[in-house]
């Protein structure tokens, strides 16, 4: 291919000596051409979400909803109650796009099997689909919107924010989620999940929408600044090294006691057995049994 190119240019621009032409000239021109094509295309193609019609988003969301969500939440998100008065899926009118972004974005929804609580699992929808679903659910009734990045971006949080966030965290959150965000038990098999490995946006949305049994922390009481402080504390703590060693799950005295017994007593009793064991003996002379 290169040779064909060189032969072609050599014929057309006969006055340019071959020595001045770098042997990378051909591939360079090819590359520039490709980049130019792509750039022009990107520049002139309308941007995805910004330029799409909102109604189209809602329609696409509805289509996804009908396939993946309506069997529990109803054809119009009105919820389905069973004959015995229990809920198959709650009504989604007024839960807002934030709730959808949280539930679907953490993989909780769609629920794989009925149960007292839905666990975090593999995310099944792409970001685009999630925002479309959110747009559809938001159209059912006004509710919390997906927060803007500025509200939960804590990369530049001050230490005062982190300290304040810790105070708010210990007052409002540790009773369910434990001091390190390692999770805790709720009645009847439910639980407050681990907070480690959850994105800032999802933490914000959980606070805002109160998923499943979690209470709602509305912006009017726990302001966006308060929420950002909590997120700042959580993210800072996640990055903090274990000063004392491995945390063993950060579950408190129960796991510490287990390690004391299994590792501490186990190893020491092992040593005791070794200390008192009979050492090797020179072979018997054959008399004694």
């Amino acid at each position, binding site marked *: 291919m290169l040779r064909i190119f060189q032969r072609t240019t050599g014929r057309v621009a006969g006055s340019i000596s071959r020595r001045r032409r770098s042997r990378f000239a051909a591939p360079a021109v090819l590359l520039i051409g490709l980049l130019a094509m792509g750039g022009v295309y990107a520049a002139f193609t309308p941007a995805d979400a910004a330029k799409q019609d909102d109604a189209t988003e809602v329609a696409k969301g509805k289509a996804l909803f009908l396939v993946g969500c309506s069997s529990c939440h109803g054809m119009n998100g009105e919820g389905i109650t069973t004959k015995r008065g229990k809920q198959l899926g709650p009504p989604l009118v007024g839960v807002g796009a934030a709730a959808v972004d949280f539930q679907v974005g953490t993989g909780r929804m769609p629920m794989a099997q009925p149960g007292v609580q839905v666990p975090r699992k593999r995310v099944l929808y792409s970001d685009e689909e999630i925002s479309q679903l959110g747009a559809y659910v938001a159209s059912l009734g006004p509710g919390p919107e997906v927060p803007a990045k500025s509200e939960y971006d804590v990369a530049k949080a001050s230490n005062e924010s982190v300290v*304040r966030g810790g*105070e*708010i965290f210990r*007052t*409002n959150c540790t*009773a*369910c989620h434990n001091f390190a965000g390692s999770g*805790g038990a*709720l*009645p009847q098999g*439910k639980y*407050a999940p681990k907070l480690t490995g959850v994105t800032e946006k999802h933490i914000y949305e959980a606070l805002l929408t*109160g998923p*499943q*049994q*979690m*209470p*709602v*922390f*509305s912006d*009017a*009481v*726990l*302001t966006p600044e*308060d929420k950002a402080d909590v997120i700042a504390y959580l993210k800072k703590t996640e990055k903090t*090294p*274990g*000063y*004392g*060693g*491995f945390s063993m799950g950060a579950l408190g005295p129960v796991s510490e006691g287990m390690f004391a017994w299994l590792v501490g007593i186990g190893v020491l009793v092992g040593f005791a057995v*070794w*200390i008192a064991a009979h*050492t*090797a*003996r*020179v072979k*018997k002379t054959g*008399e*004694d*049994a």
Partner: protein
Amino acid sequence: MSDVHSKEIARTEADPIADPGVESHLPRPTDVDPAAERRAERQVAMLFGLSAVFTVLCCVSYFVFAVGDNPDTIGGLGASNVAIGGFLGLALLFIGIGAIQWARKLMGDHEMIEMRHPSVSSDEDRDEALAAFDAGVTESGIGRRPLIRNSLIGAMAALGLPAVIFLRDLGPLPGNKLAHTVWKKNMRVVQDVTGVPIRPSDMQIGQLVNTEPGVFYKDGPDGEPLYHGTELLQAKTKAATILVRMHPDDITPSRGRADWGVDGILCFSKICTHVGCPISLWEQQTHHLLCPCHQSTFDLADNGKVIFGPAARPLPQLPIMVDSAGYLAAQSDFTEPVGPSYWERG
């Protein structure tokens, strides 16, 4: 050892098999093989030597790894702790292992026999001791002088009193203190930590707010907070509350409590009636409140009734209203003592 005599079965009833005696001693490889002995000796010395090396490394780590504002880390763990502790542990461990190896491989290991002696003293000693005691008691005359004996007992017993009485000022008498909190009529219910007062419209159904009396966030005339330090903690121990908002149709207030809430917003004590842990595990769909300490569960839609767990009394409810500025405030103090039960509670 195959002692022919031991094959004979003993004729005594108590011992069907005769005692063959302590096994004869068998030598260890280190006892007979000089090469093995030297190897063991080198092994023990090496263990001790390594221990010394680790001790030096431990001391070096103390100075090398920083703590404080910019602590060093290794693999996500605190470097100072891991290094100092790890080297110290190995240093100590190797001394121990070396000493044990020395004992097992090289020290003389013939089993010895030591005879036991009876725990009881000999009869002569007992008699002598008793005789000495008797002589002493007789000479003291205490047996013949009941007046002296009894008055002595009385005097010594009386000395118990100061020992108890001197402890009186350990603390004040409880009085009626446990039955009251700082809550008063018109005192605002504010969010804990941030101190913001709350309007009913600020709360959504399913919301929980951890709250405190508004007075905790007020300053006195000197510019200092009215409550701080020990007094603040003592007051919080009884006055901490939670606000929850439920659908009004879900609530079944007991008699006289119909106006204790505002539009489905209820205020309850945060202090468990079992042994006093603060509770804020609120399940917004079931309206149950779970205490993390011993799993007492309260139904807040049903006047804080205990539905599971070791608590015996329902959670006290604080009657609330909307004050003149539109914020949630208390109608009065709690109508019953808050927190764990006690004898005089009634």
